């Protein structure tokens, strides 16, 4: 399911706003819905939310708890955006200037893989940790990737960019809108008030 940039932004604004109306439990629950498939993250977060409550109540710092819940909500918005963002819509809004951003986002897994491999090889070779020495193979590889990418750009993206900024939402785009509205309504109509917390 892919969401266009404007609808992700509207969804995020609605969820963030709802997290300030009352205790942010509804906004947290709504923000978990788009990332339910990432069971590890969801499970870890639920555990962390409960643990935080117990630890903060034990240490008599429960007034911090709404901020903790809000922080998890914002994290979930980031995960949902990275999972569901329709990167093509970035092009439609930003034009050719957005193209480097769109392509850079594609290469995060590759650069992560390169760094992980270099660190593994250093450990396997029993070499002492040295940022200078570790940076050499990474930089060489980054330059190679940049050179290849430049050539790929040149041969694949010939012609003039035609923006296709469709603002009308698709069926997929209705989902974040609906979720945002749900978060707002629940926060307004069924505000959660926990003793001593807001």
């Amino acid at each position, binding site marked *: 399911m892919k969401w266009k940039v404007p609808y992700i932004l509207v969804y995020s604004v609605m969820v963030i706003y709802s997290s300030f109306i009352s205790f942010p439990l509804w906004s947290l629950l709504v923000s978990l819905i788009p990332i339910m498939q990432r069971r590890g993250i969801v499970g870890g977060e639920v555990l962390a939310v409960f643990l935080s409550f117990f630890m903060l109540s034990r240490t008599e710092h429960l007034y911090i708890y709404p901020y903790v819940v809000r922080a998890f909500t914002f994290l979930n918005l980031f995960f949902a955006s990275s999972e569901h963002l329709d990167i093509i819509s970035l092009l439609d809004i930003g034009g050719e200037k957005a193209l480097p951003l769109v392509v850079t986002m594609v290469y995060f897994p590759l650069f992560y893989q390169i760094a992980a491999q270099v660190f593994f090889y250093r450990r396997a*070779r029993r070499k002492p940790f040295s940022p200078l*020495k570790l940076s050499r193979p990474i930089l060489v590889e980054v330059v190679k990737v940049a050179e290849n990418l430049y050539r790929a750009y040149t041969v694949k993206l010939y012609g003039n960019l035609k923006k296709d900024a469709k603002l009308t939402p698709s069926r997929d785009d209705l989902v974040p809108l609906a979720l945002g509205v749900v978060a707002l309504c629940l926060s307004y109509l069924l505000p959660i008030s926990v003793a001593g917390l807001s």
Partner: protein
Amino acid sequence: MLVISSSNLRGRIELNPGERVALLGRNGSGKSTLINSVTCEGPFDFHVDGREFCDTRDYSLISAVFQEPSSQILARTLEDELKIMARFHEVDFELARKLMGPYLKTDFFRLSDGYRKRYVITSVLASKPRYVLLDEPFSNLDENAIRLVKEVIPQGSLIAEHRTREVRDMVDRAYLLTRDGILELSKETLWDESFLRNHGLRGFKLKVERVEHGNTLLDVGVGSLRVKVREGEVLCLTGPNGSGKTSLLKKLSGKVYVIFQNPDLQLFEDTVWGEVKRDDVMELFNLKELRDRSPFALSMGEKMRVLIASAFSSGFRVIGLDEPTAAMDGYGIQSLAEMISILKEEKRGIIMATHDDDVLTLCDSRIDL
């Protein structure tokens, strides 16, 4: 007709829309430089039907697929990549669906090696260029993956390769690129082993000297497998891409000094001497002249030589090689065979992960994964 030539070289390459042509040459002969010149920043000129290509840079006429798939994608899925390209010019989504099948919407980083090559070739073919230049499309692919890639290479292709065996059955003509010029070859030449050997091409059998095996250097269980290596022995881990050869070598690292696939990610020093650190080893592996050079500036064969020399210097008794022939030409393979001979004479053990038929004659024993 596409004509490719250079003012620095004798001869020229001619390619008609209805044929596939091979461009053969050893590493460093200029095959990649030729293909990269399609961006009009290299020493080769392209003429299409008598007109200079770089005057218009119309990439609907000529397109190119470069060597490394993972650094030429523009999106995580082919569908998204074609949507980006479609913002610039017309793209044939139907053709892409036909060529990629169920993998049109699959994350590139989850595809097999064969389908990654197929992804990048399809992304170029979807623009329906008249001519396609392919730089080593079969590099590091096993038999199944090669078949997957061969299925999608169209007419009007120039295929730059040193893996002669893979291209000779599928091309109509062939050229040899050397430092002196461009030479058209007869098809029969592609089966001539001494020609291939003398010009640094692949497709010939290696001659191997067997040595007596000494004491056991390594005898460990890894999962359900038993890995045992003796002095002077070459144990090969064989199997297709994705069968677990690299994973097995990773599990053995610590007991074995493993040289993995991308040499550039395994060089950390600013000179060859910094990597090897021993004069006697530099002498043994014929690296003295390269002592003060940056290892990153060396050829692929030289980098492998540096890595094997540093493995030797490390003192590890067993050395692992993960697909060492991936980007090697015929000279590189002969050089690898010499280095393996040196290691065997020095009573080291070798574990080599490979699916390359050209080097299986080096194996004394095998584990098939």
